[in-house]
């Protein structure tokens, strides 16, 4: 199987190279088609390569040439890389199909589309290279390529000044993160035989706890830049808003995941740290999630809102990773496996539904010319198909069954609740607080996406835009595909968990399949896979339904406890979706039977008796999210200025204008103090530069003497 994986990887790089060449050579008209065909092909190869590794569990390894001074460059596609490759492949598949219809709408005539294709495929290749790199130099080189290509793609559409600033902020932050990661690798590589990951991992075992802590912090915040963690995520909403709509799904669905990949690879795979680092990750993740969802709920620009929501999801994933690190360090492999599989599951889910939502936003923007929720409204009648698919995305991201977000968020919260197994009370309190914060996040996420869907798709049109209806079969296929994946991942977790287990088991040391997916299909009273009494109880509940029809171990996700408490937690989205469907049908049947005799009169909607419902009278997105804004005023700390114009006396006002300005909490608490400190240092140093030659000569002399003094012995 390894040869098949290798062949598909080689074919993938060939397809990318072909894509680059063909896009460069083809004209403006052909370029979108080239992107679609080569992109689909290469993404399918990505998925295939990942699938072979995940199904067989065999890693693929290959040694490339030796680079002078860096050692041998090696590739390795292990299950940890493969799960990220799978997510990237699904996202790229959807984006490649989607992009074809939109590339002409989105990019102005001034920008040649074929150059976009070149960047697109180069980024795709560098992403895969990051995932399969098995030594620090190759990893860092491809990481740097990825950062620069992201910047170029973001700034592809340079029509506005703000776009450029956003791009530079992103580039600066990526480089800062990159430097931190380089230092982390250097600390790790100081005692290593060479710079391959296996050698670094071996060297890490001999490092002091302080060195490990510094490696962890450098790696966590270096990769945290890409993953969008507080406090290094201020670039993310800016650049997502500025990026071309066709490109953001790649940002949110692929490059964001690279941050988690980096954190997992460096901080969980290469080094093994104590639980203190896990607590840090858990706390940072929970704060990130809460801050992300607060700003997402109050933002009215669909793109910015989704960007903040990406931060929230990143927080949930990192909180899961933190829980995993804590459980692993404190010797609870089963809990660690649950936490890690929850985090990976959520990563996969987030890639898919966020791609769906960003593509839906791009669709809406192309149809209406705006993405301001206060301007939109009534899209469900205009675009019924998109409306349903967007609703699926909203339900999935707000963790509503039967879609995928529910499974992973439920598992994350259950993983946090497993803190009962820990002995330290203080860590249990941290877990409880973080769990509460994540629960609050989940509740706010529902508010946030109810707002998005209700304000954009329901109600009446508020803005002055005119619909431009284009037939977009490819785009619809791409969105429908993602919605179907959302449903499948949400209803069949017992088939997803064994796949994730390939990644989870080597890292956590326990199998999530055996601990969570109970073998109700295969167990009998005799073969002893499950205690007979327990099995009997669950057979009576119907847990073996589908036995013989379906492969696998069962359809129930269940963690078994001790004798006194045989079930710690359990769910089965597969059975519940069937039950929900049956109940819905039953309810529909009963209602139609009951109302058969009564006639239904359809009249105009009640709107307070006014002659015509004007758009200005309807509920706006700002109004909907205002309670959140008021409740969390301590975090938002808005700067409200009121401008009142009066005519005659104080009582007769003609107009009141309220301006509300907000500085993002991260900007306020992190970026601005850091910037002020930098300014202060620069101001202090500027005092030395007064332009007198004699003084400069004195500096040189003093510095020279200082060096001589320092190195006097050697």
């Amino acid at each position, binding site marked *: 199987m390894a040869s098949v994986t290798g062949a598909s990887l080689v074919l993938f790089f060939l397809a990318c190279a072909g894509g680059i060449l063909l896009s460069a050579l083809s004209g403006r008209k052909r370029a979108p088609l080239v992107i679609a065909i080569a992109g689909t092909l290469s993404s399918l190869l990505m998925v295939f390569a990942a699938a072979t590794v995940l199904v067989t569990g065999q890693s693929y390894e290959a040694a490339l040439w030796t680079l002078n001074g860096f050692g041998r460059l090696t590739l390795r596609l292990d299950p940890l890389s493969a799960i990220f490759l799978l997510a990237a492949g699904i996202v790229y598949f959807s984006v490649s199909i989607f992009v074809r219809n939109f590339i002409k709408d989105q990019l102005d005539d001034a920008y040649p589309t074929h150059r976009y294709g070149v960047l697109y495929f180069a980024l795709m290749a560098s992403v895969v290279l990051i995932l399969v790199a098995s030594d620090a130099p190759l990893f860092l080189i491809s990481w740097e390529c990825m950062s620069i290509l992201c910047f170029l793609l973001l700034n592809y559409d340079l029509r506005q000044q703000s776009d450029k600033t956003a791009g530079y902020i992103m580039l600066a932050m990526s480089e800062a993160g990159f430097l931190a990661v380089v230092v982390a690798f250097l600390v790790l590589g100081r005692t290593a035989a060479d710079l391959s990951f296996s050698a670094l991992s071996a060297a890490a075992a001999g490092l002091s706890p302080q060195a490990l802590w510094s490696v962890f912090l450098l790696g966590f915040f270096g990769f945290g830049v890409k993953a969008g963690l507080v406090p290094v995520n201020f670039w993310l909403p800016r650049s997502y808003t500025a990026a071309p709509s066709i490109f953001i799904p790649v940002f949110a669905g692929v490059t964001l995941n690279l941050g988690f990949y980096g954190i997992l690879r460096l901080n969980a795979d290469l080094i093994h740290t104590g639980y203190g680092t896990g607590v840090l990750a858990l706390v940072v993740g929970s704060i990130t999630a809460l801050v992300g969802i607060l700003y997402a709920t109050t933002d009215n620009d669909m793109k910015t809102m989704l960007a903040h929501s990406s931060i929230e999801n990143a927080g949930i994933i990192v909180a899961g990773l933190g829980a995993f690190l804590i459980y692993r360090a404190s010797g609870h492999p089963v809990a660690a496996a649950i936490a890690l599989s929850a985090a990976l599951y959520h990563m996969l889910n987030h890639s898919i539904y966020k791609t769906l939502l960003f593509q839906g936003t791009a669709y809406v923007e192309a149809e209406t010319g705006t993405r301001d929720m206060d301007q939109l409204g009534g899209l469900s009648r205009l675009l019924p198909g998109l409306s349903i698919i967007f609703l699926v995305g909203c339900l999935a991201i707000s963790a509503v069954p039967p879609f995928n977000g529910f499974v992973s968020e439920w598992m994350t919260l259950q993983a946090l609740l497993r803190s009962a197994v820990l002995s330290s009370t203080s860590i249990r309190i941290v877990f409880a607080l973080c769990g509460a914060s994540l629960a609050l996040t989940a509740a706010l996420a529902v508010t946030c996406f109810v707002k998005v869907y209700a304000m954009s798709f329901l109600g009446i049109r508020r803005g002055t835009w005119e619909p431009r209806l284009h037939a977009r079969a490819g785009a619809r296929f791409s969105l429908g595909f993602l919605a179907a994946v959302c449903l499948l991942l949400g209803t069949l977790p017992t088939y997803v968990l064994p796949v994730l287990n390939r990644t989870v088991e080597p890292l956590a040391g326990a199998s999530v399949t055996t601990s969570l997916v109970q073998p109700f299909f295969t167990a009998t009273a005799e073969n002893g896979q499950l205690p007979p009494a327990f099995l009997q109880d669950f057979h009576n509940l119907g847990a073996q339904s589908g036995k013989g029809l379906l492969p696998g171990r069962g359809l129930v996700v269940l963690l078994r406890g001790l004798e006194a408490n045989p079930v710690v937690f359990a769910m089965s989205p597969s059975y519940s979706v069937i039950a929900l469907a049956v109940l819905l049908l039953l309810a529909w049947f009963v209602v139609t039977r009951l109302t058969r005799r009564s006639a239904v*009169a359809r*009249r*105009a909607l*009640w709107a307070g*008796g*006014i*002659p015509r419902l004007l758009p200005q009278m309807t509920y706006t997105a700002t109004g909907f999210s205002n309670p959140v804004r008021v409740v969390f005023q301590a975090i938002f700390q808005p700067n409200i200025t009121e401008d009142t114009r009066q005519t005659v006396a104080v009582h007769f006002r003609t107009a009141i204008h309220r301006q509300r300005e907000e500085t993002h909490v991260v900007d306020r608490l992190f970026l601005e103090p850091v910037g002020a400190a930098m300014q202060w240092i620069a101001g202090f140093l500027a005092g030395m530069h007064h332009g007198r030659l004699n003084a400069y000569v004195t500096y040189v002399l003093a510095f020279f003497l200082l060096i001589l003094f320092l190195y006097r012995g050697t």
Partner: protein
Amino acid sequence: MSFWFWHGLRRGIQSTRYPRRAEAAPGVSPGCPVNTEFESDDEAQRAAAICPVDAIIAHGRSAFVDLGKCVHCQRCHLCIPTPMNWDAGYEWTRLPAKQIECAILPSAFSKSMHIMVVDAGDCGACLHEVKQLNNPLYNMHRLGFFFTATPRTADLLLIVGPVSENMRGPLLKTWEAMPTTRRVMAVGSCAITGGVFGHNFMCAGGAGSVLPVDFEVPGNPPPPLAILHGLLVATGRKSVTKNELVPEGRS
């Protein structure tokens, strides 16, 4: 420190005992004239002539009162030598002229009826009296009546005002938005006959010309207890007082 709780307990219940007991407090009703049999034709003619709103119709020695027009001015009671008989009560609710059956709401509504009030061009007087139903004295909640702000949950449409042209559309929309098993009550002489506004190019002249009215509460304005009586009639907890109306074709 406030002792409102203690004061409240010491004062006891101040709400009216109506409908369990008649309310006898002075001033709860302006009263209204009732059909009177005079000694002579002249006296009946005089009573009819003194009425400013043509609410009294003389027929032989009898003077019939159309309460739907009466404004309680008391001229027929105080300004003529032989006054009309005077009713100091308040149970005046009646059915529209052509309606024979009393369309009370089903028994499910008898302890819970939600009322949507529409001001269809009211001068404010009737609306003011309707508002009094919520105050501690009349306290209609104790009887299971509630005002509601949306017709979607309303069972009774209470109309005040003569239905001006601008309010005709909203009134119809409100009625259409109400779920069935609904009743319409016209409160005040304006809502019944158009009152002093009558029927003209800007005024429909009563709710009956726009909607099928089920109950009428005469009065200009009717006192709160009269409206309360109307609500009780609508739920079937009181019966309609048998007013002898003007016989057909006799006026």
